[in-house]
Each structure stands twice: as C-alpha cells, then as structure tokens.
C-alpha cells in the first residue's frame, strides 16, 4: 500500500511540474506573440482564417435568440437575426413606407377586406426550392398554431385563396389597416416542402428562407453564422460574404469587444460607455450611433380596478400630477441628459406625430391650483407600484416622481416588485391605482402601444378605460389610407394629452456603436436593423 502511495504522490508532483512547464511555455508563447499586437485579435476569429478578401460582418447580440424565425423569435435580437434569413411579402423601408418584397405588387378591394398579391417569379429558397403561392399559404397556416408567439398576426387573416402559382388572395373579416405592417413584422415566408421534409423542430434548428443570407451554423450561446445567398433575387445584395452574430449579454464586454476590434456592430450600450466612445471617436476606428428609442416610459392611472373611487378619476388631478414633475431635472440627473421628453404615446417618427403638442411643463403652482379646483387642496395619499431590476434606472425615476408629488401634497406609497410578479398582477389588473412601466412599438406607428394600453377590456395589460379612446383606437384599424390614419393618430395624441390616462415620462436614448469600416448601417428607432445593404470597407 505504501508503494502505491509513493507513486501516487509522485504522479501528482509530476503533473504539477508538467503543468507548470506548460503554463510557463504558454506564457512565453504569449510574450512572443505580443509583438504583432495588431494581428492578434484577427487570430481570434475563426472566420478570419478564410481568405483575406472575404468581407465578414461581426455583430454582437444582447441576448441569445430563442429561435431565428420571425413568427417565434421572442426578442428584437431574435427577429433581427431572423430577417437576415427570411423575407415577407412586403417590407417597411427606412423611410417608413411599405414597399414590395416577395410580392411584386398588390391590390386592395374597395371595402378593404380582400388583398390580392402578385408574387415574384424569380425567387428561390436557400435549399433550392422555388418560391410559390403554396409557401405563402403554408406560412399562414402554420402561423396560426397555438405555439406560435405572434399567431395573432396570422389569425388576422380569415382565409387565403391560391389563384395560381404566383397569385394569392388574402381574405379578411373586416378591414385591417395594420395588415401589411403585421406581415412585415412576423410573416417570414417558410418553404412548405422543406418543412414537410424536416419538421418544425428541424426547421427551427436549420432554417431556410429566401433572404439575402443563408443559415450556416448555430452554436448555442456562442455564435450564429450566415453566408451570402448566391441566388438571391435582388441583384447586388447582400454586400458582405458572411455574417457572424455573437451573443454578448454584458454591455461592458460588448464595449470591450468593440474597442479591441473583435466586433463590428454593438447595440445596447450604457450611457457611460457611449460617452467614452464619444471621447475616443477621433483617435479610434469606432463611431457612436444614438437615437431616441421608440419606447415610452409612463406611469398609468388605473381606472379599471383599484383606482375606482380615488382622486385619479378626476381629469384635473391627472393634469395636476403631470404639471408637478420636473421631468428635465430627472432626465438630467438620472440619465445625464440621455433621454427625450415625450408629449404622449405618439412619438417623433411615428405616423401622425404632431410637434405642436408639447409635453407638460414643470409648474407646481399650476398643479396646486388644479388640485384645489378638483377639491384636494391638501392633496391625498395613493399607492404606486413599479417593476424592479427591469429597466435602466427606472426605480430612481419613480422615486423622484413620488418626491415631486410629495411637494404638492400627494403622498405616494411606492412598492417595487419582481418583474414577473409585476406583469402577472398587471395582466390580472391587481396593481395599485398608479404604476410605472414602458411600452415600445416597432411598426413605425403607435398602434401596438395604444391598442395594448387603452384598447379596452380585451387588452390584458390595459389599466385605463375610456370608451371614446377605445373607439378612436379601433378607428386606426379601419383607416387604410395613411393620411387619414395620421389624422386619427394626431387626434388621439391631442385627446390623451388633454385628458391624460398616463404620466408621460421619457423616451430613452439608445446607444449603439460600429467600427468605422461598416457602411450603410441604419438602425431604426425600434432597434431593428436589416443587414441586407450593410457593407464593409
């Protein structure tokens, strides 16, 4: 036994020595490699081992996509990857216009319930299948499945008729001005034949679309690789040979990867990281891209359940509470100025936005006056809730707001909840008379935000019920003409400003950064981007 011990120990020692040697050797190697520092990061990316002339775009993702298919991908990250692979019948371009994509053209019947799409005849899927009307029908059919995240965008269509190989008729029960936008959002056309061949799971793991890039590999949590589709119908696109998406959940790491030239496009940067990029933009090959994000932070009044019978039912009280907050100070102190004030749920860039409707100014005198008019000269007490650890600095904002209200005599009992519980209670309408949250929109219109927040009893997350508003939101759906619809939006913006169901807080500034070699990268206010036209110098 003793002998075995000796051997065992010597084995450990030998292993330690060997390990030491390896480590020292490794270090020595590192030092040698230190000389050509510039080439170092290039070595890191396996994709760069390809011939030098290959243009590779390296994009950081803020989260791991659950799928990379438009109807099931549940985050902006997922859909941004998905739209490199898939295409819909129509496309919302950078100017906010609906333009042809897989459909060459379409007509809408007088009553707005029949859409006839003429499909392109020169389109192939990545696996070589020809794109036909059958694939559109199949995509619609599959999209209605109970496990499809955005099935409501497919259920919006009542029926579909295949007229011939390249013509489909889409039948609606009633006019829906949002239909083309819904298609643009979630109708990524799937290949029927390929789906039959590999099944739903197989399709999700190795997706095939008609888009500018074809799927190569997905290593969970590590990378998603796509390459240019040679038979892409839109000549001259895409502009790069390969795209590599890398999930990097931590924003500091994304920032570091950009500075070390290991990545070309990063999004979701924190304001302090944006500031340090601004400081070195002249010396380094990086460029900051910033824009107000199409997301409105607000505090809602709840007149559907817990707020019934409380002062917030009075219009003057809600106006007074809007006047009582020093929004600019909040933006300045809490966000270092990196946020925009907003006058309502229709924000700049949205259809029907009207700059003449201005945000409520900070006017505590006026607030006191209005409170007195409403019969609350000494203020009142009320409860408010907010989600914790969900939005950047949002807890601080709500606390500041409660402080400003305290100054006009409104005592707020503020409670923060774990976000999951918060949203459960929001869906079951059990939150207090006041609660803070945010609502984004990616359609270029405020419709989803309005439908969800003031759309009536059928909107699970709505806390404010005003029959007139419900009708106005309904009017949006029934107005296919853009100009007429814009007028409806403006009317809603004005109405919701005068009789506010919400305290409109701010729109956060989104920060992204790119390597200077990247050309033609235009993220949208919804944080969407399309890589079809993005190139590398």
């Amino acid at each position: 036994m003793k002998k075995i011990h000796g051997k065992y120990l010597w084995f450990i020692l030998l292993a330690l020595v060997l390990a030491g040697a390896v480590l020292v050797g490794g270090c020595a190697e590192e030092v040698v490699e230190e000389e050509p520092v510039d080439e170092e990061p290039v070595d890191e990316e396996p994709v760069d081992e390809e011939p030098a002339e290959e243009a590779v775009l390296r994009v950081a993702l803020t989260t791991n996509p659950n799928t990379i298919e438009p109807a099931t991908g549940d985050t902006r990250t997922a859909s941004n990857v998905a739209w490199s692979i898939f295409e819909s019948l129509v496309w919302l371009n950078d100017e906010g216009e609906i333009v042809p994509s897989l459909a060459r053209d379409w007509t809408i019947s007088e009553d707005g319930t029949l859409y006839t799409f003429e499909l392109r005849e020169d389109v192939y899927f990545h696996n070589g299948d020809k794109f036909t009307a059958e694939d559109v029908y199949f995509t619609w059919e599959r999209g209605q499945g109970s496990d499809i995240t955005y099935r409501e965008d497919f259920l919006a269509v009542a029926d579909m008729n295949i007229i011939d190989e390249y013509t489909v008729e889409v039948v609606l029960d009633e006019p829906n001005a949002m239909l083309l936008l819904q298609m643009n959002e979630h109708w990524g056309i799937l290949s029927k034949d390929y789906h039959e061949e590999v099944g739903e799971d197989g399709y999700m793991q190795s997706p095939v679309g008609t888009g500018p890039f074809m799927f190569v590999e997905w290593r969970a949590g590590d990378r998603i690789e796509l390459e240019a589709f040679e038979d892409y119908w839109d000549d001259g696109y895409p502009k790069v040979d390969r795209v590599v998406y890398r999930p990097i959940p931590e924003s500091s790491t994304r920032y570091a990867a950009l500075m070390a030239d290991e990545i070309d496009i990063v999004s979701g940067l924190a304001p302090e990281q944006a500031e340090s990029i601004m400081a070195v933009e002249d010396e380094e090959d990086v460029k900051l891209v910033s824009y107000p994000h199409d997301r409105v932070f607000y505090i809602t009044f709840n007149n559907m359940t817990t707020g019934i019978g409380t002062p917030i039912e009075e219009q003057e009280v809600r106006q007074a509470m809007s006047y009582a907050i020093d929004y600019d100070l909040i933006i300045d102190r809490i966000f270092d100025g990196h946020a925009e004030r907003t006058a309502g749920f229709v924000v700049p860039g949205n259809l029907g936005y009207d700059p003449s409707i201005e945000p409520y100014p900070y006017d505590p005198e006026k607030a006191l006056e209005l409170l007195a008019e409403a019969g609350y000269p000494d203020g009142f007490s009320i409860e408010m809730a907010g989600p914790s650890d969900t939005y950047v600095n949002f807890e601080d904002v709500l606390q500041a707001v409660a402080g400003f209200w305290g100054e006009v005599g409104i005592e707020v009992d503020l409670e923060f909840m774990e976000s999951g519980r918060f949203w459960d209670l929001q869906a079951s309408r059990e939150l207090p008379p006041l609660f803070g949250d945010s609502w984004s929109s990616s359609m270029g219109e405020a419709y989803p935000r309005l439908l969800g927040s003031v759309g009536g009893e059928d909107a699970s997350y709505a806390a404010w019920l005003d029959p007139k508003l419900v009708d106005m939101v309904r009017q949006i759906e029934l107005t296919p003409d853009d100009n007429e619809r814009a007028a409806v939006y403006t009317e809603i913006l004005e109405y919701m400003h005068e009789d506010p169901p919400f305290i409109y807080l701010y729109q956060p500034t989104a920060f992204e950064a790119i390597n200077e070699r990247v050309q033609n990268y235009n993220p949208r206010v919804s944080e969407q981007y399309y890589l079809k036209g993005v190139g590398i110098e």
Partner: protein
Amino acid sequence: MLLGVLFLVFFLLHLTGDPVTLMVSRHASPSEIAALRQELGFDRPILVQFWDYLTNALQGDFGHSFRYRQPAMNLVMERIPATIELASVALFMAILMGVTIGILGGSNPNSILDSLARGIGLLGQTIPTFWLGLILIIIFSVNLGWFPTYGRSTFELFGLNIPDKSIVLPAFALSLFTTGQLARFTRSAVLEVMNEEYVTTARSKGLRKIRIYSRYILKNSAIPMISIIGVQFSYLLSGSIYIETIFSWPGLGNLLAEAVSTRDFFLVQATAFFTSFVVIGLQLVTDLIYMLVDPRIRYR
C-alpha cells in the same frame, strides 16, 4: 436527496407565478392568456403539476423549454462541455497557484512570503469576480491584446474540440476564489504538519528538503486539501453565472441566467437537477479518493 432538490426548485419557481404572461404578446386578450395557461397545464393544482413533472423526470423527460421549444435536458447537455472545460482549467490553475502559495507561506511562517500568501488567500476569496472579470478584459484584452475579450474558440485535436487561449481569462477569474481557499488551507495544513515530530525526525536524519516535503509534509496535508478540491470542483462545475455572462462563455451559468430571467421553468429545473447530480457525484468521488490517499480511511 435529488428528489428534495427537484421538490424545492419546483415549488420555489412556482411561487413566482407562471411564465404564461411572458409568453404571449403584450396586447393579448385575457381569454388568450387563459387559453394558453390551460394548454400548458398551469391552471392545474400545483401538486398535480409536481406529480406530473416528477413521473416524467423519473423516465428521463425533464420537459420542454418554452422559449427554445426543445427538450430542456438537450439544452443543458449542449452547454455542459463548455462548463466542464472552464471548470477543469480553473481548478487546475487554482491547484497550481493555491498549493504553491500555500506551501511557500506555510513553510516560511511569519516571513514576507507568508504575509504575501495570506494576502493572496484573502484577496482571492474576497475580490468580486464580476469586477475582476471586467478589469482582466480591460487590461489583457483591450489594452494588451493578448487574449480575446469574450467567447469560446476552439481548435481540433484528434477529433476533439480543445479550447484555445480564449479560456485563459475566464478560467483565471473563476479560479481565484478557489485559489484563495486552497492557499489558506494548504498553508495551515503545512504549518501544522511541519511541527509534527516525524518531520523533525526526518530533518534530523538529514533528508533532502524535497524528500521531506514530498513524502512527509505534502502527503500528510493532502486530506483536507482533497476535500476542499472536491467541494470547489463541484462548485466550479455548476457553472458560474457571473463569469460566464461577462465573458460570454456558452456554458451552464450563462444558460441558467437566461432561463431564470425568462422564467423558463423546465429549463431552470433541468439545470438545477444536473447541478445537484454533479455535486452529489463528486462528493462520492472525493470520498473514494480519501481512501486511496489515506489507507486508514475505510468505508464499510
């Protein structure tokens, strides 16, 4: 024991509600939410849900991840190699650094070396890994360019995917806590053994220093070190949420962080099950190694 873990994780998760509201779009109607809840079975009594889960788990079915629409255990298995790599390299670094520092400190009590060893031991255990990870990235990746800032890259050797130097920074950051602990334990074990009479005897016989250390001191301080290494390895293997998140290392910790924030219940449960399985298994292995090192220890 595993049953207890399953029970605990299941009920703790269900205390937070259910994932249905996170799965529907935000303008879903109450009836849509109710329909989905019913379809997924979250409207049933919680004990029924647990029984269902348990009977399936015993047959090796740990449920489907809602988000990924794949069997939860498959997702866990996919991430295991990356975590095992990281844990092994981190443990290796920790043993190398921790034991060396501990021996140096313990054999020269109250010297400068000893203070340094104690300092490093303390630092290793108290320094926040999150902060350390970022500092390492800034110094060694951004400024010096020696290592990549994030991710896992591998090269192929005999058909195996071997991680390249991308593993160095995350493994080092991960190893520091264990290094600190090992350094402290080794130091005190060596210190204790140094004063034993058999060591004095060995010295008086004029044995060479290396022989005294290898045959008498190290061997006799091995038992506490092995138990520490066993415990630490199971801790490292369960995946570090912080380190894997900072370095975008595609392992279990990274997966778990995401599963928790998206309330992907079955995925969290599968990860917890696997982790407890590893911890219990490693405990067994540690006990067996005791036997090998110290023949006086016998299990009957």
